[in-house]
């Protein structure tokens, strides 16, 4: 029986990765939910928009590196995020002006919006592949680890170590900062309140003098910030690969719906629900259990509920179950 080591194993291999992955999903899920609440459609271009923002961060990182700029121990990418966000917002506003606004004024059904967003997805994907190509790119520089397993073992004298990658710490911290600023904005400022009013009841909001153009503009600005930061954080943590972002869109949708689509706080938690579920279900508990049980009872099998191949399938199954039992999501659909 070695309780402390067991906890540390679990912490190192499930909790930390799940927190980081969950943060990345949460940012994307809030993006989906915000678009759904204010502009009222499921945006199938989500993943590729995130990829588009990240692409500029990658290109600018390479440029800054060639100039010799840097943040020392922190990755240069953090420095490029503001510029990438600006380009991203510009792209989103152009798309909105030439594509989405027409259907918004016509008050098209959501299905038509969804199909249009599929068109945007194709175009965005093409632009990304034409500009940067489909290959795998790493753009992380600076310090890679905050705590290494060996250092931790030496420090504490335990048999198991904790590894904390700097990208994981950055992901969690940046997500918390961005999300708290966003919730403060939505709940405490006048513009945020007007956005919530617009998403609750469009006609009433228009009657009380809220400018719909401004609401849409602010929504795209927030969406651009969330998409770019979420995308860059994911790219830093894993690596930048355009088509992975398209695949990531699916768990992001799952997170948004599980949390209750249209509810940003639900989406935020939904991201973590999906991430923890994926990692807890596909983690092999053999090492964890072997610390808890006496030696002669050590298990032979890996004690894995599902193989890691089914990582995505887990989140999708959760989504299907939620849709069946409680279609409005865990946090019932109070819109924004």
């Amino acid at each position, binding site marked *: 029986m070695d309780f402390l080591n067991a906890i540390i194993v679990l912490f190192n291999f499930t909790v930390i990765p799940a927190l980081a992955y969950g943060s990345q999903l949460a940012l994307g899920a809030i993006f989906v939910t915000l678009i759904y609440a204010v502009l009222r459609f499921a945006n199938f271009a989500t993943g590729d928009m995130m990829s588009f923002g990240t692409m500029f961060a990658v290109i600018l990182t390479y440029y800054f590196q060639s100039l010799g700029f840097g943040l020392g121990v922190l990755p240069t990418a953090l420095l490029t995020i503001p510029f990438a966000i600006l380009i991203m917002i510009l792209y989103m506003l152009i798309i909105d002006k030439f594509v989405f606004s027409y259907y918004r004024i016509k008050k098209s059904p959501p*299905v038509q919006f969804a199909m249009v967003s599929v*068109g945007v997805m194709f175009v965005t994907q093409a632009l990304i592949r034409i500009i940067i190509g489909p290959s795998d790119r790493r753009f992380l520089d600076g310090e890679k680890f905050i705590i290494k397993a060996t250092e931790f073992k030496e420090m504490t004298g335990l048999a198991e170590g904790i590894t904390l990658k700097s990208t994981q710490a950055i992901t969690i911290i940046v997500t918390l900062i961005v999300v708290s600023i966003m919730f403060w904005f939505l709940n405490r400022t006048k513009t945020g309140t007007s956005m919530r009013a617009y998403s609750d009841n469009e006609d009433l909001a228009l009657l009380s003098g809220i400018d719909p153009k401004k609401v849409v503009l602010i929504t795209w600005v927030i969406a651009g910030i969330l998409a770019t930061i979420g995308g860059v954080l994911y790219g830093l943590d894993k690596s930048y690969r355009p088509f992975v972002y*398209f695949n990531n869109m699916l768990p992001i949708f799952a997170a948004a719906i599980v949390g209750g689509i249209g509810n940003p706080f639900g989406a935020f938690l939904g991201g973590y629900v999906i991430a923890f579920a994926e990692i807890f279900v596909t983690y092999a508990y053999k090492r964890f259990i072997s610390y808890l049980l006496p030696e002669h009872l050590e298990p032979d099998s890996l004690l894995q509920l599902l193989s890691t191949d089914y990582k995505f399938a887990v989140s999708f199954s959760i989504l299907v179950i939620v849709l069946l039992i409680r279609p409005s999501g865990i946090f019932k659909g109070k819109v924004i």
Partner: protein
Amino acid sequence: MKNYKNVIAAYSIMIFLIILVGIFQSWSIALTILNYCLISAVMTIGANIQWGYAGLINFGIMGYTALGGLAVVLVSVEPVKKAWQVGGLNILACIWIIVAIIFVVKFILNRFNKSKLRNYSVASVILGGIILLRVTAAPGIEAIESVDPAKTGFLGGMGLPVLFSWIVGALLAGSLAFVIGKIALGLRADYLAIATLLIAEIIVSIIKHEEWLARGVKNVIGLKRPAPYEIDLQTSEWFINLVTKFNSSKLNLINSISDKQEALNQMVIDASSVYVKLCFTGLFLTVVIILLIVTQKALYSPWGRKMRAIRDNEEAASAMGKNIVKEHLLIFILGSAIVGLAGAMMVTNDGLFTPGSYRPMRYTFVIWVMVIVGGTGNNFGAILGGFVVWFLWVEAAPIALFLINLFTSHLPETNAVRVHLIESAPYFRFLVIGIGLLLIMRYRPQGIIPEKIIKQ
């Protein structure tokens, strides 16, 4: 009659384009494109039944396509006897366990009233069943996968003729659609789209990772064909005679006998690949025509009118006593079965089953673009959409390359922009498809050939 003129004109342009490919590139490429166009047409007929007739948005096309492909492997491949001996019993036991779980759950749901206890017992039955399944299946799967893993490592199929698998593919896809329809059809339109997209991902990931079933990502190659093999044709007397007869004028121009023989050999090789593709074209064309006749008849039957009524106004149709849930489920099954058939046709055409290649981009969204571009609710439009979009999907890269070379011809060969653009020519297909979809949605939302409303 004016309507028909449009249709005929559109199809003639399409066929003309394919003939152009035949003249400028090669006849083999043109026929490959034509075959894929026909397969896409079957898929669009399926998607059009769901979206155009009934307004159901199904983003799970990829899942049914993959299932149709799986059917080809399960039906036509020779059974691996050794694998059945070592692990067949476990797999059969698993099937019985699954059936038992379903019956127990059904029994509990029917027998007891809605309560917390019922929910918990259903959940525990399912969880216990899954654990039991894993325990039973694990040794069997391990044994099966270790039987000659480089070549087999799976149970194999039934060794039946490959054409039979097309029907099985449709049946498999239809029964899956029944399950999904029961689960998801109550959802609102955009939720249904997301749910079907994700369920399709689950299906493909199961096919990819369950190697005992169809070798997963290791692929199954060398599937049976309903057409003769090139190599057999090249050695058969009558085929060589046929080629000689067709090309006699060309052959007569060559004087030396050895040159003549060489030219003839080359012609036979080319002709054999064209002949095989023509066989496939004939088969696919038959399927498309049969489906077209059936779906056209259905569209203008009382049933088709009922479907359109449900699509256009659910409440009104419901008030007239139409059972909307039942009709939606039926049309969901029918459409999916046709997509499954197309999936089986595609794998038969390729001769190999590669689960890793099933991506939502190619097998769901492109098919949807085909339906929207061609014309929703009109079968001629949907088929045309399949042709046009597939043609663009294949030919966008060569056309883009040509245009890039044209516009950058004043730049030197080593210019960075030019090199980069030429390297990224294959990706212009996404751009073409995306912009095409956006333009059609904006300026001609009813598609190239719009739905024809017949007043009766």
